[in-house]
């Protein structure tokens, strides 16, 4: 296999697992090639996927490159997701929602710090479902957007008020880290 095509397959693998558009420059750094070479390689991969009439396409979107399903497969995809027997929030989405509920208002950065990974994709999902919203901006220099939960979430949970959320101390396993947890929580919770 020549160097070109092996770079192509590494590229495909990286784009496959990325859950955000990946900037050309990030990829150039990862593969230790120039940005121009990377751009060329990405365009070639996009063209290859298109020419082969594949179900997945590579698109250059806001700030980066992203694999996505071909628009003409939408009908099957909708049927597929509609028929999923097991429809629940992904673990990542559930945990992100839980952190926001208990520690609001909270920024993306703080969320990522608690979960150890970027939560951007999950956050978009929660925002579009209307259970989370932007509530304010951080007073700090970055003026980061802060997120909180919405009345829609309370309604779904059958709660009147955020303070009706169960106390985390009641759910701690073996009471080991209660203190650590409680001290990390905002006032009133």
């Amino acid at each position, binding site marked *: 296999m020549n160097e070109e095509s092996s770079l192509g397959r590494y590229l495909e693998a990286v784009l496959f697992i990325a859950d955000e558009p990946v900037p050309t420059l990030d990829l150039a750094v990862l593969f230790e090639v120039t940005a121009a070479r990377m751009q060329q390689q990405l365009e070639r991969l996009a063209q290859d996927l298109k020419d082969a009439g594949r179900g997945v396409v590579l698109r250059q979107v806001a700030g980066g490159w992203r694999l*996505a399903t071909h628009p003409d497969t939408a009908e099957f995809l909708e049927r597929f997701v509609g028929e999923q027997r097991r429809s629940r929030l992904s673990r990542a989405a559930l*945990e992100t*929602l839980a*952190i926001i509920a208990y520690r609001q208002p909270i920024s993306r950065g703080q969320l990522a710090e608690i979960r150890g990974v970027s939560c951007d994709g999950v956050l978009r999902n929660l925002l579009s479902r209307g259970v989370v919203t932007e509530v304010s901006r951080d007073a700090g220099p970055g003026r980061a957007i802060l997120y909180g939960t919405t009345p829609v979430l309370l309604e779904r949970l059958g709660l009147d008020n955020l303070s009706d959320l169960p106390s985390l101390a009641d759910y701690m*396993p073996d009471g080991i880290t209660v203190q*650590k*947890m409680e001290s990390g929580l905002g006032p009133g919770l």
Partner: protein
Amino acid sequence: MKLDVYEGPLDLLLQLISKERVDVADVSIASVTEEYLRAVRDMGEVDLETASSFWVLAATLLELKSLKLLPKRSAEDPEIKLMLEERDRLLHRLIVYASFKEMASQLSDRLDANAGYFSRSAELPEELIPAAPDPLRELTPQTLAQAAIRAMTPPEEETVDLSHVTPMKVSLEEMIDTLKERMRSRRQSTFRALCAASTSRIDIVVSLLAVLELSKHRFIDIDQAEPFAEISLKWVAKDE
């Protein structure tokens, strides 16, 4: 003999028994115990549950060991029969444990061989969200609280640090030396008297092991009239 990785009393026993060049008929409870105590010292700390599960096993081994130290008795003796049953149970546990231990390394190989496959964990594309059944319908305050705890609890450390573990005051070797000197000068004593100064259960157990070792090497004789009676000790070694 040095055991690098210690995963519990069964594991330790298994490792001791399967070491080459150990006279297995003589795997003395002392060497098992001493090895364990050294492992404990090296670890610096061990949780109480692990410690007590070791002592339960050590007690069983002690019993078996005592069979060898005592004069030969008939296999028909009900007490002996009971001990042999005990030994068979322990052997069975060891075999089962050994199988799982072997299987664990097989699982490890399989996990390693498959570690290179990464799947997508990306969220559903936004345009497909309306088509999916509402995933929030099963959400309850309880599941939310549990998820919060899961997300905010730091990754579990596997070694539990409990500080209330009895520190080991003396090693078995030191205890053997101490008791040997004491018995040499007193000539006759009881186990209770020897342990009078012991403040912890571990010290007493170590003393008992030391006494058994001294008996095995014919420094002392042990006599006990009946179960739970006073244990008499007599110095029988020829003084140099």
